[in-house]
């Protein structure tokens, strides 16, 4: 980004340098004073009183171990459990969908794979969870898993489709010309390369999946956010902030770590030469996974990326 951004303005001369110093000081002062005001306002409302003790010496006869156990073992554990069950299922089913869409010679078969992808991509995850919870009467965990799998399966299929479209046409032609069926060409030749190209986008999609697991809060699956709510009700309103901050930090840290993994993978991939490169002229990558935007941003190429939130 920095290399691109610097194109937008000249290398500063003596005058611009002086001006930049002034701007820097002004804006830094602005942000610092804003922060200071927020802290002051919090202090006025008594945010920094003994309510933080809920984290080490909670009231109502609970021990600190109870609080942390509820947050990190039961809450985070439930979040992770749903994620760990849903992610492989979504990857496998999404892979199967995109293979069917690409490899089936039967028009009807590949069209129905397309329809399934399009429909489930366009529905809210929460609606799918509600369907499983109240329609099928499943438990909280399996409703969350169902919602996550159905939606992310469609997105994974879409990401892999973009990967398949990005492969040089010669790969498929070569496979077909040595006598492999279209299905075998897709599975044996194209898929392994598509997965490799799209690995960063697939890893970013894990962040989306993990974030969406917090929707379990709404259908009463006791994951991390639900535990925070429970604690708020148990200890009372004024203890919300410390507990919430712990939960938010946990969520954000985990997600940033996984995002970093995606960026690292991408950098590694670009430095290794063994990845099939796309032909010139960027292939469309409709609604590529979560942060395909970043993919394009760092590659600095065409408009193909569609970030999903």
């Amino acid at each position, binding site marked *: *980004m920095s290399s*691109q*951004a610097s*194109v*937008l*303005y000249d290398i500063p001369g003596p005058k611009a340098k002086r001006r*930049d110093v002034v*701007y*820097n000081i002004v*804006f830094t002062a*602005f*942000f610092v004073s804003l922060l200071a005001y927020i802290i002051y*306002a919090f202090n006025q409302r008594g*945010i920094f009183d003994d309510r933080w003790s809920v984290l080490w010496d909670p009231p109502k006869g609970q021990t600190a171990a109870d609080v942390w156990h509820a947050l990190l073992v039961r809450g985070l554990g439930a979040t992770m459990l749903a994620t760990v069950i849903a992610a492989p299922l979504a990857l496998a089913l999404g892979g199967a969908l995109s293979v069917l869409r690409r490899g089936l010679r039967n028009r009807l078969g590949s069209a129905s794979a397309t329809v399934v992808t*399009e*429909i489930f*991509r366009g*529905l*809210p*995850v*929460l*609606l799918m969870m*509600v*369907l499983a919870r*109240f*329609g*099928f009467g499943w438990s909280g965990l399996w409703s969350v898993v169902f919602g996550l799998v159905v939606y992310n399966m469609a997105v994974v299929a879409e990401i892999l489709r973009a990967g398949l479209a990005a492969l040089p046409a010669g790969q498929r032609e070569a496979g077909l010309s040595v006598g492999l069926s279209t299905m075998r060409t897709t599975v044996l030749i194209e898929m392994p390369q598509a997965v490799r190209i799209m690995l960063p986008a697939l890893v970013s999609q894990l962040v989306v999946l993990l*974030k*969406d*697991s*917090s929707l379990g*809060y*709404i259908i009463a699956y006791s994951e991390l*956010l639900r535990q*925070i*709510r429970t604690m*708020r009700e148990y200890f009372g309103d004024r203890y*919300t*902030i410390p507990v*919430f901050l712990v939960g*938010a930090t946990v*969520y954000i840290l985990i997600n*940033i770590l996984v*995002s970093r993994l995606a960026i690292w993978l991408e950098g590694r991939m670009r430095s290794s030469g063994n990845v099939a490169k796309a032909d010139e002229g*960027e292939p*469309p990558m*409709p*609604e590529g996974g979560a942060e395909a*935007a*970043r993919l*394009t*941003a760092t590659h600095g*190429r*065409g*408009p193909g*990326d*569609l*970030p*999903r*939130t």
Partner: protein
Amino acid sequence: MITFIEEFGLVWGGFLATLSLTAVSGAIALVWGTVLAAFRVSPIGPLRTFGALYVEIVRNTPLTLMFFFWVFVAPSVGFVFPDLGFWPAVVSLSLYTSSFVCEALRSGVNSVGIGQAEASRSVGMTFSQTLMRVVLPQAWRSAIPPLISVLIALTKNTSVAAGFAFTELVAVSQRLANRYPGDVIEVIVGIGLMYLLITIPLGLLASQVEKRVAFAR
């Protein structure tokens, strides 16, 4: 299908609620996201840092957590909304979506040829002139397809408001599910169709625009 048709008044109300939530928070997110994108490419260090920090944090926060913050945490630091439901939802959704708008625009800015910015600099334009008159008008165009899919995602994300006292489509489906326990699946299929009514045309629009933009390039 009978239940769904009988209760269509309720469903239609939910549909309008989803639409208005999408429209209002989409508009705010678009403006704030553009400002953030300008921050992120600006020559002023503190603004760049602010933009980068904002996007990194907000993008890695679950939307449900954002809602939880504005509904349960903000009131205890003195930030109380006049009514629960619509406005907390608008604030959460716009703050969340703006980080994705920012990233879509930024990659749009990156896709504008270097020569464009160089040319405008060489005729003596300042940073803000370069950005406003040369780069952003072109960045917008290639950012439209990703922006539309941000909008699609926003439409689906408005469903989170169902968990925080706002009656939109998913909340309607929950209510109908309680009232008619026998017809839950049919009701949810109907509600799903209402969502597809918004998301599928938007998706088609995105791929149409994308084709055209790819051609123009």
